[in-house]
């Protein structure tokens, strides 16, 4: 019988829900989800797949101990930076285990690229990691140039380095905003987007596209720098440091932000290397590994910059690392503009290239870490195998390692500090 409130004469809504669930279970011929004492017994089973576990690890995650339950975070959670599901095993408010479930954005880009010509591959990789589009194009462009045995002209290399560093700045800027957003601070993301739009408009002036630039070509870049790009670059350069300082002032000293990031998600350098974490996240753990220095590509051996590291290894160190790298990138951009040579921006390359059979590996330092491409040619117009290693896909493995013992609310704060992009994770 439905319990009815004596005063308001309204049936108890929770009771109504339970009755409806019981009715549906009766229709389906299932036993009601009640224990004999009338307690609701359904919660413990939510989230467990109705099939035997396939691996030991899966069995560990999906078998519940005393007082534990599973919570699905996502796939449409606003802070997952894309579409991803975290199955979180909790005991009260404390996380026991995390199982990331991927594949919601899987488009099979590697397979698509193996059925595309070398030139069109550069368009397919754009929407992968959609916050570092220029880097996505850079690595395949280098790999295909190695396969085909050509080099881009000097000016093209400088323009490449310029747009790539601009891309890094807005990507890092957004990470700072998103990290604050995931802890409830709305303002920094608005300023971050204002700064990002300045750069994106600049890049759209040079490439003709606002987000998926499709700017790199095998053997060069699509367009030379034009007046609009240069004037926007000059305006932006004049005020960028002030803008970043302002955004930094909102976050860095904030007491709430500091208490939620310092000593949170601390990753030692040894663990980070073992887990395959690269890029700013690895340098925040004190390992000075930067592909631009370790394996200089493009023109980075002609430029002067420092590989900055932090000692903390926690979320706050990862945030500080981003700020330091933005400043290094601005320093790099100044040098690139100073040294920009004259000349063509595109080597003479036919529309459909057929490299000799061979293999090439190219790695670049994307805002999220080591982004690499392994391309195999069999002499045809399509790559025989096109493999991409996306840094955020690998960095995501740190999350189940770091979170056990922490509060549920800190999951997103730690995840945002790794700055994963699901378009890249799922390829």
């Amino acid at each position, binding site marked *: 019988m439905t319990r009815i409130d004596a005063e308001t004469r309204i049936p108890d809504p929770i009771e109504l829900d339970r009755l409806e669930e019981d009715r549906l279970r009766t229709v389906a011929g*299932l036993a009601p989800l009640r224990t004999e004492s009338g307690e609701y017994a359904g919660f413990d089973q939510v989230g467990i797949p*109705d099939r035997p576990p396939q691996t030991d690890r899966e069995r560990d995650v999906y078998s519940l101990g005393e007082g534990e339950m599973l919570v699905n975070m996502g796939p449409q959670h606003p802070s997952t930076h894309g579409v991803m599901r975290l199955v979180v095993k909790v005991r009260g408010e404390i996380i026991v285990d995390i199982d990331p479930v991927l594949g919601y954005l899987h488009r*099979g880009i590697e397979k698509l690229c193996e059925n595309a010509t070398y030139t069109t591959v550069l368009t397919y990789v754009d929407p992968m990691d959609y916050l570092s589009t220029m880097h996505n194009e850079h690595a395949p462009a280098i790999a295909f140039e190695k396969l085909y045995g050509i080099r881009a002209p000097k000016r093209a290399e400088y323009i490449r380095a310029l747009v790539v560093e601009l891309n890094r700045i807005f990507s890092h800027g957004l990470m700072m905003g998103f990290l604050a957003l995931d802890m409830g601070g709305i303002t920094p993301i608005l300023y971050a987007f204002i700064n990002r739009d300045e750069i994106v408009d600049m890049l759209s002036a040079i490439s003709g596209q606002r987000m998926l630039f499709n700017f790199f070509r095998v053997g060069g870049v699509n367009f030379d720098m034009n007046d609009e790009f240069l004037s926007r670059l000059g305006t932006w350069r004049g005020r960028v440091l002030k803008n970043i300082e302002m955004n930094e002032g909102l976050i860095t000293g904030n007491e709430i932000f500091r208490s939620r990031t310092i000593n949170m998600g601390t990753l030692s350098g040894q663990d980070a*290397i073992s887990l395959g974490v690269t890029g700013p996240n690895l340098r925040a753990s004190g390992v000075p590994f930067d592909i631009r220095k370790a394996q200089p590509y493009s023109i980075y051996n002609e430029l002067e910059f420092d590989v900055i590291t932090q000692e903390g290894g926690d979320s706050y160190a990862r945030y500080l690392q981003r700020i330091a790298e933005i400043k290094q990138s601005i320093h790099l951009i100044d040098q690139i503009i100073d040294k920009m040579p004259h000349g063509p921006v595109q080597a003479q390359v036919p529309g459909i290239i057929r490299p000799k059979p061979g293999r090439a590996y190219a790695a670049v330092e994307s805002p999220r870490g080591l982004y690499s491409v392994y391309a195999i040619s069999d002499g045809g117009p399509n790559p025989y195998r096109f*493999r991409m290693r996306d840094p955020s896909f690998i960095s995501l493995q740190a999350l189940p390692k770091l979170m056990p013992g922490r509060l549920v609310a800190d999951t997103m704060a730690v995840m945002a500090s790794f700055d994963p992009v699901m378009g890249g994770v799922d390829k």
Partner: protein
Amino acid sequence: MRLLTERVDSGLRELWTDEDTVEFQVDAARAHDVLRTLRDDEELSFFMLADAAAVDYGSGERFEVVYHLFSWKHPGWLRIRAHVDRADPRIASITDLWEGAMFHEREMYDMMGIVFEGNRDLRRIYMSPDYRSFPQRRDFVLPDDAADSSAAGVNPLERPETWDLTRFNRAPAVTFPTSELRPGAPAEAVEDGKTLADQSRPR
């Protein structure tokens, strides 16, 4: 290069260098030992696994698992190509050397169907758990037969009658609990091939 040949001794074949890559082949059976030596030897110290990828050389040929390593002490990348039998694709897992190889190996298993022995968590990572083919093999038909998959358009968790678990049972690397599924599992959730979710849809 010379150091490499000394330390890793036998089993290296087809040494080859590129402008920035040193490459050699090993047998699948020796790959794990070679990688351990490369990581732990003080003069080699290839501490970082940059990439692990699988390549399919077509039916009747072979698979290859390709590792890229990095060391501070040597210029360039080190590429190790381990040949894997295509009829019975098995190779030792390196998750005990680099924890981060887990997602690499899960992706290779998902896309190519290579079984990594010793991996604790070898299950599909991108495709749904009941998906049956390996989409990045060369003989995977395009336009892809995912459209004909039993799981097309339906949440696979709602269609347990389509699960083909026999394929997994043939592979000892993937273990199952021998008991009746799991204690406390909602066994009653499926009856006559229909689930609660099927029944409760608006009629």
